[in-house]
């Protein structure tokens, strides 16, 4: 038997609903229809009254989740696409994220963002906007890259007493498979060495971890060992694991599918540079998507985002520095 990344998300929600009567799911088309991507398939039937369709009102979905969380509930809000969460942005960053700080009560809301590009997604169904959420204090931002993390981190997200922005990558939904669901997991906030190496560190998260792993496998055939660090969560960000890796390799390339201005790759380089500049044998590099809206046509899209090919080119250049 094998289980996909998407099925793991569904199973994590089923377990959260079964384990805790305070959990409920609210979002567009999530009830009988099972969600636009079927991440809540059959959950409305299995948990009557606890998986509910919302009007197309991202602001009100999030606002009501804040109110319910203040009452002791643990809502899971499904945004149909990460791109649409900007309509509920105010309630996420100004309301949910400030409740604990202002009122000393927990605000345990999980917002699920189906993010990242797929061929044909276009400008408004492809975005990776984790960095703008990470910018605000009061939010935890998770970016699982594996089936196991999609499952265990979502369960942990529901258990955390703070608002969690859960960025699940649509490109991984159907293609990424594991043999079984995990029994244990690394704690949230801890990065993972996805592949050990000694010649260079590539830091990635979400779908880019798999592009980086492809590059590492290719380079290994040529005798170059790339270490791939999967950040897992971008807030908190595990700088220690990255610095320890750079201490081994001396070279750092950060890869993100998000736009280049600011963001996770810039943050990683800023932190490693200021805390461990002496470890660098070459200037740290980063690779992001192009600074344009995300194109619709598959050929344009593949050239817009980092791929194994463009990461390999950046890695070769870094090795020459």
């Amino acid at each position, binding site marked *: 038997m094998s289980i996909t990344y998407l099925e793991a998300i569904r199973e994590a929600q089923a377990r959260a609903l079964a384990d805790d009567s305070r959990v409920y799911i609210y979002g567009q088309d999530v009830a009988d229809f099972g969600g636009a991507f079927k991440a809540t398939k059959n959950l409305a039937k299995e948990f009557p009254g606890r998986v509910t369709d919302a*009007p197309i009102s991202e602001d*009100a979905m999030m606002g009501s989740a804040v109110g319910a969380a203040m*009452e002791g509930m643990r809502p899971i809000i499904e945004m149909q696409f990460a791109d649409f969460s900007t309509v509920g942005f105010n309630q996420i960053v100004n309301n949910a994220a400030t409740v*604990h*700080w202002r009122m000393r009560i927990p605000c345990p809301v999980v917002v699920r963002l189906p993010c990242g590009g797929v061929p044909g997604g276009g400008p408004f169904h492809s975005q990776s906007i984790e960095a703008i959420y990470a910018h605000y204090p009061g939010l935890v931002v998770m970016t699982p890259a594996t089936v196991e993390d999609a499952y265990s981190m979502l369960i942990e997200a529901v258990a955390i007493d703070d608002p969690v922005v859960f960025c699940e990558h649509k490109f991984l939904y159907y293609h990424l498979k594991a043999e079984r669901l995990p029994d244990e997991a690394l704690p949230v906030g801890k990065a993972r060495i996805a592949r050990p190496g000694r010649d260079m560190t590539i830091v990635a998260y979400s779908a880019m971890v798999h592009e980086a792993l492809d590059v590492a496998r290719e380079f290994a055939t040529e005798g170059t060992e790339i270490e791939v660090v999967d950040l897992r969560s971008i807030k*908190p960000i595990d700088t220690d694991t990255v610095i320890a890796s750079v201490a081994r390799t001396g070279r750092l390339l950060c890869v993100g599918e998000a736009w280049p201005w600011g963001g996770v790759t810039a943050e990683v380089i800023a932190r490693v540079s200021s805390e461990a500049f002496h470890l660098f044998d070459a200037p740290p590099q980063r690779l992001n998507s192009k600074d344009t809206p995300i194109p619709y046509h598959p050929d344009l899209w593949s050239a817009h985002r980092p791929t194994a090919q463009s990461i390999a080119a950046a890695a070769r250049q870094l090795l020459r520095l």
Partner: protein
Amino acid sequence: MDRATDAVEAAADSARLRERFLEALEWMLLARVVDEKMGALYRAGKVTGGVYLGTGQEALSAAIGTSLRKGDVFAPLIRDGAGRFAFGESVLDAIRTCLGSSLGPMRGRDGNVHRGRPKEGLLPMLSHLGAMISVVNGVLMARRGRGVTDVVGAVSIGDGATSTGAFHEGLNQAAVENLPLVLVVANNRYAYSTPNERQFVCESLLDKAAGYGVWGRACDGVDLESCLEVLAGAVAAARNGEGPQLVVADLLRLCGHGEHDDAAYVSAALKASPAGRDCVKVAEETAVSNGWVEAGELDAMKAAKRGQVEEAVARTLGEPAPDPYKESWYALASKHLSETHDEV
């Protein structure tokens, strides 16, 4: 029904009205006294940041607060001193938050009108207008999910907030969920300086109720009796399962948006119109002319409240300000996931 029974019932109604009217009037006077003091402290340079008063809106606000009961939920806005006090907020909570005392409910982390005690059903507002409507919806949905009935949630907004997306989404969501929400719009004619005609073009904001499929009720925001009657009806209907109630009150703000604003933009004609009357004076005159209270008693009530407020201010001014070196700089409840720590 015979005449004697009619007379007994009329007398009982009149006694109930008198009682409710005088209770609300007391909260109005308290709010006015607090506002006058806060204005004076602002002009004396004793307040950091803005001071926002509820002058002219006390009748509506008091009617909201007195129509609710313990166990209900209230998300007030910036001109709701009277309603907050009627709902149970202490004068000390108000003064401490306005003066930034570390002992206030917000501990200097948030100020002035951004205060509340969520565990007691009083939700602190954020500045983004209309945002609290869906938050109260969420509280009501959670209570319903737990099988708690007999609860009403009230939200205060102004005419300006009716132009926001949050208003639309929130009221529509309440209607779809058939929630016991009372959404009170204080139409004070200006959102900061922007007049109604630059805010909406429907004849009355009440016209919006039909669009959302909810009940709409109008009241005269200057007339306490009208406010009490309409709010009592709206709250009772919501409690009865009749769904969201949109209440629109006509009135005029008799102060600036904040004390930094001289409100020179308010038209003289509006000020001279019935909406421009001072609801506190109108209520006092009604109470006296109905023989419910003597003018001297009103003076004594106000003097007592001034004493109460002076005492709260003196106490607060002697309290410690928040200490940045002792502040806990964690934005998360889960400290182990926070990126900052206690060092300053």
